[in-house]
């Protein structure tokens, strides 16, 4: 290990989580790389009350899409439905192609797209877990503000991308 690495390991403030890029949230409000899947929530285009929970599993590239009430997406058979495609597109905006491809273990050729390399089968995974993670995500917006000193936050500087 060289001196720089040792110095890095001996710093209190280093960036561990890569930054995410801002994106439009209207159609795909929630995307995450977690539980061994790219997973997220896609708002229905026709019914404001309905959302789809879509995912691509890392490694096997199994595809899943259903409503939050666990009704299978009618458009998913054999190949990815538009919800999964939108999810993948937004994930690439948010995390960058490299990070998504690495997580899913997909080889994307130079200039190629992520979805052109995903040829997984359909394998329904329960929507409830992802949907509840989405609700937990939304619940942050309802946590009241704090005016406590929060000295803990000195470990977490706002690290704007150096422009």
């Amino acid at each position, binding site marked *: *290990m060289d001196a720089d*690495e040792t*110095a*890095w*390991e*001996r*710093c*209190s*403030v*280093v*960036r*561990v*989580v*890569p*930054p*995410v*890029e*801002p*994106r*439009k*949230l*209207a159609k795909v*409000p929630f995307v995450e790389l*977690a*539980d*061994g899947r790219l997973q997220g929530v896609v708002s229905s285009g026709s019914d*404001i*009350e309905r*959302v789809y929970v879509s995912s691509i599993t890392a490694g096997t590239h199994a595809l899943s899409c259903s409503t*939050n009430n666990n009704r299978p997406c009618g458009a998913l058979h054999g190949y990815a439905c538009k919800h999964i495609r939108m999810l993948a597109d937004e994930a690439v905006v*948010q995390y960058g192609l490299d990070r998504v491809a690495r997580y899913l273990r997909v080889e994307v050729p130079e200039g190629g797209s992520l979805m052109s390399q995903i040829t997984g089968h359909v394998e329904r995974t329960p929507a409830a877990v992802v949907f509840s993670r*989405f*609700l*937990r995500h*939304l*619940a*942050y*917006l*309802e*946590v*009241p*503000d*704090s*005016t*406590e*000193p*929060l*000295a*803990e*936050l*000195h*470990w*977490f*500087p*706002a*690290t*704007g*991308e*150096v*422009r």
Partner: protein
Amino acid sequence: MLDVQLSELLGEAPAGAPEALDLVAGFDAALTNGLARLGEEPAAALAAMAGALAGTPVGERLAEAVDKVSAGSVADEHLAALAGGRAALFGAVHDALLARLDTALGRTRAPWEPAADAADPAKPADNLLAGCRIWLRELAIVGWRGVDHDLVSSADQTIEALLAVPELRGLAVLLDGLATELRASGPIATMERLPARRWADLWTRAMLLSQHGPWHHAAPEQVSGRLLILGADVHEHATVVRVQVHAILERNGEPGRLVRTSVAAAKVDTIVGPTVWQLLGGHPVLLAALAERRAVEITDMPLLPGGDLRWHDDRARAGEDADPFAIARVQLAATVAPAVTPLDRHPVRLAEVVLVEGYKSDGGSFDLGGNRIGLDLGRLPSSGPLTPALLKVSTACIGLVRWDGGQWSLQPLAVQATVKKQQVAAHNGDWALGPTDPKAAKAANKNGDVVAVLRERAGRLLRK
């Protein structure tokens, strides 16, 4: 800050500090591999830490804890003692660094006055704190290398519950930040390098906070007067944003006091850049004062002994124009700095406001009469107008002196610069009411109102 002051600051490390930090590194290595099966080397490292602290008030408990842990028994009280020992080492390093800084700057600091029996604060939910300790104990037992997805997720419910308790917010954002980093780093077992110091810092602080909750709510003093803002420091991780304002509090006939005040809002990872200010809209007087560079008149606001003013927007009203550079030039040198809350003493919290002028800038460091201090460019928030390019052409800078990894650095909060023969000033808080730079405004608008989208979704889906 003058060149002689910088020269004094940058001198050799305070006596004993490198040795203390080596002891910490030994502890951090032990925590990386876990306390369950403590090898010879980490066991020796813990014993060395206990040995160094033998003559201190934590000495006895620490020695016992190291004995027990080395013998394979890892109980809560032992972990608390270990955390206390590590925190004590950092406390000593912090004090040495702060003394160096105060001496170099000629800054007067108020002494810490032990609170006269502050009414015992309402004890926060014990079962919640116990839940935190269980998670922290599991982490310590398996070590960072042994942390898997299930262990990270097992903290979710505790964190959610903590977020609902206002006085435990610090612990909540701390654990949430740590859990997010652990999750994003998986599989940790095969990581090439680990942020060992950082994660052990977070673990230690969490361990201390989950004994009896936070320690900063000793009886506050109610203060009224004029608040002259020097600059805004922005803190952020995936689920929180906090703006901490550094200011001089003026009261009739008293020397000005350096104070901090802050507002924090919960958020999600997709709310980034200038958009974060929208989340702080519940504090309009403070945001307007930042954006319009005004003083603030405050009435009966609680000031904690550590120099933190607990912000109440309804007890503040905007005052006259107040240019932070003019204030810093005229008043900063004569102010009194606050005492440091004892359990907060860790070098990470060193953030002393200074004004620097007359330097040569290469965009990455300032050369002041042959002494060079690095600029902490990683701390330029994307929610404000400061850029390395602006720093390069800057002629004056208000910043925070910080210390990490054995080095001092300057975190810019505001600069004056000459751009196209025009004097310009840029402050971290300039965009508090929305970006004033057309390019930044356009970029922020491109994605629509993300906060409104998420609030709509929350309103429709959460209460079913």
